Every structure is written in structure tokens, then in C-alpha cells.
């Protein structure tokens, strides 16, 4: 390939996804540095360096993925799906234990978290199914049966690890895709009513108080098992104390005094708010909004329905993570332990979002590159 051809490719290459994500990540890394640099433990204090390494790794892998042609996603989706199911089963039996849950497979220096790539493989397999069978019709309850099973199997396996948050996330992605694939309004109403009824009945009559707690503790051992909401309260104090303009860079008292545990993973948004205030978070939210709208816009401008559904799936993956994390730290939802995309510390999730960007870019490029 000569230089001019390369330039040609770069000219047509869609940098919007990596660009937006990179911008969000920049804010994330600054925030992470601010939250952890003063930490007493050397491990915590150097987290931002590790996070940078993860970021570059994620960019490289994401870029590589962006040069895979979308038809290959379609072709290998079933194989990819079966592979992740196999890994999920494997992790249950010989996974590495950490924080009371069994989520990782250790391969030498690499720690693989199969539930992360599962999100992606479920998106591909669902997209393939919906694209192949009557993509022009509206969906009824009966059409949902097979895709539901496809989504439910990994969900159950992930909940067994136990990782309730990620498990439910897979179901939410399924719902988003089904909605986009024109699930009939009547069916949505039926599912909604049934879900609500069974939830209320289960919670109020099926379980005793201590059982509810037991179940919750079992499903999510990382949560505040004594049910006091300490973290949630400290998070609200952090956010509120930022006021309009925030306390400023490296000025978070909640983080430096370690009142807020997990401030480098689940609670990064609280620290961001404390330091940059209402204005800062408006800016951050705007960035996220741009990213999501870009995703949905891409979904409507491609030519193949499979690609379209994949992009919607990826968008929902980003969106659910973002909105649940924000709602959780502001006290609108219980603490379920989902990271904020690109802001929270964590190699696995960063890698997932990098690959997602790669997939979206590949689909975008396929319109005029390949």
C-alpha cells in the first residue's frame, strides 16, 4: 500500500467514535488521577498509569477491529456466541475468585473476564437472528421466544458467578434491540404489565425480609451487604458539595479522606461532580449524548439491517452502563456496581468499549471504504 492510498483510507475513515470516546476518556483519566493520586497505597496512587496503558491497548485493538469487514461479524456470530458460553461455563468451574465472586479466567499475565465479551457476542447473535428471520415484519410475543433464550442463557450464567449487574445488563440490551426491531406496542405493554406484577408479587409475598437480604447479598457480594446505604450517602454528599462550579481539580475532600470507597471504579462520577460541579457534569453529559446520538444516527444510515441492529446493540450497551451508573451514584437507583464507560478504572470494560467503537467504526466505514 503506498502513501496516497493510505491517505485515501484515512480520509474516509470515520474517527467520530474514537474521537468522542477519546475526549470522554481524557476527562476520565484526569478525574482518576485527581481521585487517587493522594492515596496512601502505592497501588491506588499509580492506577492512572495503568489505566493509560489499558487505554492505548484498547485503542490498538479497537482500531484493528475496525478493519474487519462487517459481514464477518455476521458470519462468525454463532461461533463467537458459543465460544463465550463455553468460557462462561468454564469460569464457573475454574475461574479466579475475587471479592466473593468468580468472574475471571487467568491466562498467565492476562485476566480474562468472559462476561465482558459476552455482551458483544449476544449483540451479534441477536442481530443475526433478527436480520435473518422476517426483518421486515413487526415482532410479536412468539417471535421473541428464540432470541430471549439466546439472551437468557448467558444472563443466567453471569448471574451465577455471581454478577447480578452485568447479567441484568445483557437482558436490558436484549430489550433495547427488541424494541428497535419493532416489537409491537401491544406486546411491550403485555410484557411490562406481566413483569411488574410478578416483580411486586415476588417481592412482597414470595420472600421474607431476611430472605430478600440473603438473595441480594448472594447475588451481589460486593454491595454493601449490611444494607445501610453508606456509600450512597457519601456519594450524594460528594456530588452535592460540588455545587455549581465544583471545588476544583484535586480538591475532592471525599476522595482524599477516603470517605468514599471505590472512588476509582463505581463512584468516579461523584468525584467528578464534586470537583467540577454542575457545569462540569453538564459538559460530560453532553459528550455522552453526542456519542449516543452518533450511534443511533449511524444505525439508521447503514444499508444492512444486521449492521443497523449491531450498532443499536452497542449503543444500548454504552447507554445502559452510563445511565445506570449515573442514577446509582446520584441515589436514584440502588448500588449495583456497574462502571461508567470510559471514566471508571478497569481494563476489561475499557477493552470492551474499545472493541465496540471498532465495530461501529467498521460498520460506518463499510458504507464508503470497502
Amino acid at each position, binding site marked *: 500500500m503506498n502513501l496516497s492510498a493510505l491517505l485515501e483510507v484515512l480520509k474516509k475513515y470515520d474517527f467520530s467514535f474514537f474521537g468522542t470516546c477519546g475526549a470522554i476518556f481524557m476527562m476520565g483519566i484526569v478525574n482518576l488521577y485527581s481521585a487517587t493520586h493522594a492515596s*496512601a*497505597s502505592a497501588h491506588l496512587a499509580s492506577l492512572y498509569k495503568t489505566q493509560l496503558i489499558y487505554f492505548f491497548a484498547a485503542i490498538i485493538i479497537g482500531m484493528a477491529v475496525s478493519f474487519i469487514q462487517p459481514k464477518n461479524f455476521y458470519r462468525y456470530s454463532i461461533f463467537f456466541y458459543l465460544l463465550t458460553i463455553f468460557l462462561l461455563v468454564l469460569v464457573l468451574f475454574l475461574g479466579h475468585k475475587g471479592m*466473593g465472586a468468580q468472574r475471571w479466567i487467568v491466562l498467565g499475565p492476562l485476566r480474562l473476564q468472559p462476561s465482558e465479551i459476552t455482551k458483544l457476542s449476544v449483540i451479534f447473535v441477536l442481530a443475526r437472528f433478527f436480520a435473518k428471520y422476517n*426483518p*421486515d415484519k413487526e415482532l410479536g410475543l412468539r417471535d421473541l421466544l428464540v432470541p430471549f433464550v439466546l439472551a437468557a442463557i448467558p444472563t443466567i450464567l453471569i448471574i451465577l458467578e455471581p454478577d447480578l449487574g452485568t447479567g441484568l445488563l445483557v437482558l436490558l440490551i436484549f430489550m*433495547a434491540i427488541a*424494541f*428497535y*426491531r*419493532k416489537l409491537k406496542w401491544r406486546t411491550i405493554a403485555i410484557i411490562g404489565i406481566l413483569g411488574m406484577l410478578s416483580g411486586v408479587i415476588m417481592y412482597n409475598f414470595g420472600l421474607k425480609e431476611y430472605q430478600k437480604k*440473603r438473595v441480594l*447479598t448472594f447475588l451481589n457480594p460486593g454491595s454493601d*451487604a*449490611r*444494607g*445501610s*446505604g*453508606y456509600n450512597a*450517602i*457519601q456519594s*450524594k*454528599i*460528594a*456530588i*452535592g*458539595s*460540588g*455545587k*455549581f462550579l465544583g471545588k476544583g481539580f484535586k480538591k475532592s*475532600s*471525599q476522595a482524599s*479522606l*477516603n*470517605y468514599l470507597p471505590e472512588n476509582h471504579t463505581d463512584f468516579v462520577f461523584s468525584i467528578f*461532580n*464534586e470537583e467540577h460541579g*454542575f457545569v462540569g*457534569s*453538564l459538559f460530560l*453529559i453532553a459528550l455522552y*449524548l453526542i456519542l*449516543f*446520538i452518533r450511534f*443511533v444516527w449511524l*444505525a*439508521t444510515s*447503514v*444499508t*444492512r*439491517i444486521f449492521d*443497523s441492529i449491531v450498532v*443499536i446493540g452497542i*449503543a444500548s450497551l454504552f*447507554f445502559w452502563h452510563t*445511565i445506570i451508573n*449515573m*442514577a446509582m451514584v*446520584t*441515589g*436514584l437507583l440502588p448500588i449495583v456496581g456497574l462502571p461508567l464507560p470510559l471514566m471508571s478504572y478497569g481494563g476489561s470494560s475499557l477493552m470492551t468499549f474499545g472493541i465496540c467503537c471498532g465495530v461501529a467504526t467498521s460498520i460506518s466505514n463499510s458504507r464508503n471504504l470497502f
Partner: protein
Amino acid sequence: MFGEDDIVKSHKARAAIIINLIILSFIIIIVRLWYLQIYRGDVLYKYSLENRLRKEVVKAPRGLIFSRNNQLLVNNIPRFDAIVTPQYLKNKKTTLKKLSQTLNMPLESIEKILKKNRSQARYRPVVVKKNISQKEVAVLETEAAKMPGVSVDTFISREYRDAEVGGHLFGYIGEISQTQLPKYRKRDNFDYKLGDFIGKAGIEEKFDLDLRGDDGFQFMEVDARGRMKRVVSSGPLFGEIENRPASPGNSVRLTIDRDMQITAFKALEGKVGGAVAVDVKTGEILTMVSRPSFDPSKFSRGLTSEYWAQLVNDENNPLRDRNIQDHFSPGSTFKTITALAALEEGIVTPNTEWMCGGAFKFGRRYYHDWKRGGHGLTDVYKALRRSVDVYFYKIATLMDIDVLAKYAMELGFGRKTGITLPRETSGLIPTKEWKKKRNGEEWQKGETLSCAIGQSFVLVTPIQLAMAYAAIANGGILYRPHLIKEIFNNNGDILKKIEPEIVSRVGYKKENLDAVRKGLYQVANMQGGTAWWYRGRGIRMAGKTGTSQVMSMTKDELFSKCEEMPYRQRHHGLFAAFAPYDDPKVAVAVIVEHGCHGSSAAAPVARDIITTYMKKYEPELHAKYAEEDKAIAKKAWLAAKRKKEELEKKKQEAEASSENSEGEE
């Protein structure tokens, strides 16, 4: 693929809805942020500056332990620690200096403790000195204003009323360690955290889940110096704040009798051994004492390294409960089982008489009797009364070891009794199969002879002995020993009642049980019985002495005087008994390590325990028996006197030598 352009386009409506939903959800987040940061911003800002909200754990008091008569045996008392909170420490040097003077500890060690905890959050208090005195508490409280950052922490500690009495029974509590944390979390499915106290031995360990309450917590508002000001409850600001009170642990009522415990403890004074007494009709444990012992209170107040070293370095191992965690050769106390087996198998009848000399030749070896000259013509009663070894050797030649083992196992030997205490050992009843598996060798018939008198491979625990003798006493019902009568909550509501549990009914013939019981009765109540001198008064004790060799001995060593041997080589003395003979109520087993004789070392302990029982629970019967015993003793004394006078007369007349009657066993 298909011409799908239109298909994608047909989804545009849904895409638009999705975009609207996304925007809507971010608007909700923004409204929420506005509420927290603008509307409530000032208040929350204040909170964040001083971090005025603190979550405090409210420790749950542990359940109490009562005796069978509702005497409080284990109680909770407050204990005080001196703590320093680094965040609020001002004028660090002068404050710490003052603190070191008050607590009478060097400044360097305080600084060292603070340094060690430097990596934890600065608002977390650091315990500088545990268990400070009332006086130190008073000084710290009054001087608090001059020492910002220093305060007194109160918490509940365990108090064991009778200190060393029953140390093994109650066990002790201690702080859960980092390494134990995951193990216990998994075992109990309970969210322990560092610093939690858990039972680590005895009843405290076994009934930990019942005794331990559930810690509560509350949110406290604190001032700039870290002092608690008030409890914060739910409000519009923080939403639902859940302050949960601590729920105290459940209390237990034991089957243990405190008076008998103390009697047993005193009776074992200066000895190394254990004693256990059970109710023969229920299997309830009335007494269980092991010595040397330890004071569990010292554990729960934070063990000092000196005390721990003292316990660990004591070669008699005070931490071991000899009643359940140690096993011994039962010695002659096992002859009761051999006799019962022989009667049931028809090898002997109660009146089968054999001539018993001083030794029994089997194969090429001589098996000696403990009495050099032998016992002469012996039936089952005499065999038990005088512990005639040769009689049992003879039985052993006519009985297979597996048959003997069957009877022993039916009476509960060779397996755990299932007592609700940790780390029970099972003892050992050998069989042919066991030996083959163990070292591939065939069983030697000669070994059966040794087993028949409770030596060789046979190993039993005192609790097994007591349960077996209880079964013989009550007509053949083997109970599972139990310690807890009931578990009740703070309001006194009984949550769980533990009923007697029958392990098995042996179904032996009544006349055989009667014969064995009669033999045991004669041991203590007929002149010449091995425990005659320790029969007590008013208790009608029926029992069997036992002496178990610590190591194998030559013939000469066997007959040398035990008290003259080195301590570690002296025999163990055992005694197992039940009382009263006519209507058995209590069974006792005693072991005294290196006590030389079952009669002189162990029997008095059993006698004292039974006497306490009879006086307390059967005073009328005790009085009646005592009266009768007195009459019998008087008659015996008169008879002895008359005999002595006659002898004296004869002596004077003929100057003949009379044989000296030897001490027993």
C-alpha cells in the same frame, strides 16, 4: 444479502423514539444533579467539609449462658479502650505525651501503633491501649478537652463467673483474623468483618451462631473534633437512612450443674485429668471438668502474650479437654464390657467359677495378674469386684476380638458420641479388619487377651465411658450426650428445646445387666472390692476401677511400686461408676493422668461428684442410704474389732505369724 435498504429505513421511527428516550433519561439525571448541587448544595458542602456524617456500628451483646438451675455462668461486662483518631489529632506531640503519661506507657510505643495504622483512613480510630482501668477512663474523660483526638471506646466483653472451672466447656471468644475471615464467611454464610468476635472453642464455638447477635448501626453527626453529637435519621436530604438497632444474641440454658462442676474441679485439684457426669435417664451432661484449665475471661479481654505462652508451654496442655479430645487405654474399666459380652455370648454364667492363679499361660507367654499370688476360685462378681485379670484372659481365649468389638461399639465406643462440642475424638476399638488395614498384619490371639482387660489398642474417651456406664445403669439405652437444655431469646421465649436423643437400645438380657451391675456394686460396697475404701457414704456407688499402663513393662516393672516410677511413666488411674445402685440416676467417668491407681486417684473424684449430686437432687434418699451405710459400717467395724481381738489373743497365745493383707490393687 437481501435488498434491505428499505428495511433499515422502516426502523427510523423507532430510532427517533430511542433518541428521545436517551435525552429524557439524561434530563432526569440533570434534574437530580440540580437538586443535589444547586438546591441542596450548601448543606451538602458543609457535610463534606467536616464529614459530619459517620456510620457507627452498634455491637450486639452476646447471649448469656446459664446453668441447669438458671445460675448465670457467662455474662457480659463493659470494657474500655483508649483510642486515637488521627484526623482530629491536634498538637500531636503534647497530646501524645500527655496520653502516654495517663496510660503509663512509653511514648514510642504509642507512636509505633499509630505508624502501623497509617495506611488506613484518617478518620478511623486506632486503639492505643486495650482494657484500660476505671481510673484511666476517668482521667481521659475529664481531660478530653485538652487532648483533641483522644477518646475512650466502650465495648462489651465476656465474663466467665467461675474462671477456670469449665474453661474447656465454655471455650472462649476471640477476634476473627484476616486468614479466618473468608473461611468463616463461607461456613456460616454470614458477613463477618475484621474485629468481630467469634467463639473459638467449646460452647462459644459450637453455638456461636445462636449466641452471637446481629450488630446494628446508626448514622451519627459528629463535630469538628470527631465527637458524636446526635443520631441522624431519615429525612428529605439523604432519603431513607436505615438505623438498625443491634439485636442481642440468644441465651442458652445448659444441662450443667454448677455445684457439681465446682466439686469436680476441687476434687481434681493438683491432678491432671478430667471428670464427666451424666444423667443416666436423659444423657444430659451434669459435669464436665478438665484440669489443668484456663480462664476464658482472659481470652475475651485481649489475650496477653505471657498468658498465652504460659498455656502453650505447659506440658500438660491446659487447652485440651481431656473428656472429649483425649483418649486413653481404659484399663480395667473395660472389663465391665468384656464381662457383659461373655455373659451375653453364653461363655460364662454369673456363677461360672474358674481357678485364677497369679498368671495365665497362653502360647509361650505368661499373662500376669496384677496380684502376684492370684485370687483363687473366682466367679463373675468376684472377677469384677477384685478386678481379676486372669478371669478375663480366660474369657478372651474363648471369645473372638470381633465379638468383643461388637459389644464395645454397641455401647458407643470407637466412634464419636456426637456431643455438641468441637474437636471430639473417637477413640479406638480394634478389629481384625482394622489391624489388617493398619499395617497388613493378622490379628494375634494374644492381643485379644490384652484388649479384654482394656490394654493394647483399645482407646476410649471419658465421655464414652460415662455414656456406656449410663447405658449399663439404665437397662441398655445409649443416649447421645447433650449439653444444652434450651435456647431462648432476650424476652425469655424459648426458641429451641433439646430433647434427649437415644442413639440405640442394646437389648441385652436383664439378668446379664443385673449381674454386671451387682459386680460393680461390690467393687465399692463389699470388703475386698477395689474401691471399697473410697465408697463414700449415702451414695450407693457402683463402679469399676482401672489402671492403664502408659508404656509396656517388664514383669519386674509391673510389680514395682507405681509412685516410685518417674512421673511420665506412672499409670493413669480411671474410675467409671453410676449411682445409686438400686435406682441409677447419675453416671460418672474420671481419668487422672499418671495417678497410678484408679482407686486412690480417680474414685474419690467420682465419689465427691456423686455425693454432691445426691445431696442436691436426692436429699431424702441420701439421708436414708447414709443411715444404712452407717449401720453397715458400724457392724463391719464391730466385726473387725472382734476379729482383731481374737487375732490378738491368738497371737499372744501362739506367737504365730499372720499374713498381712495388702492394699488394694
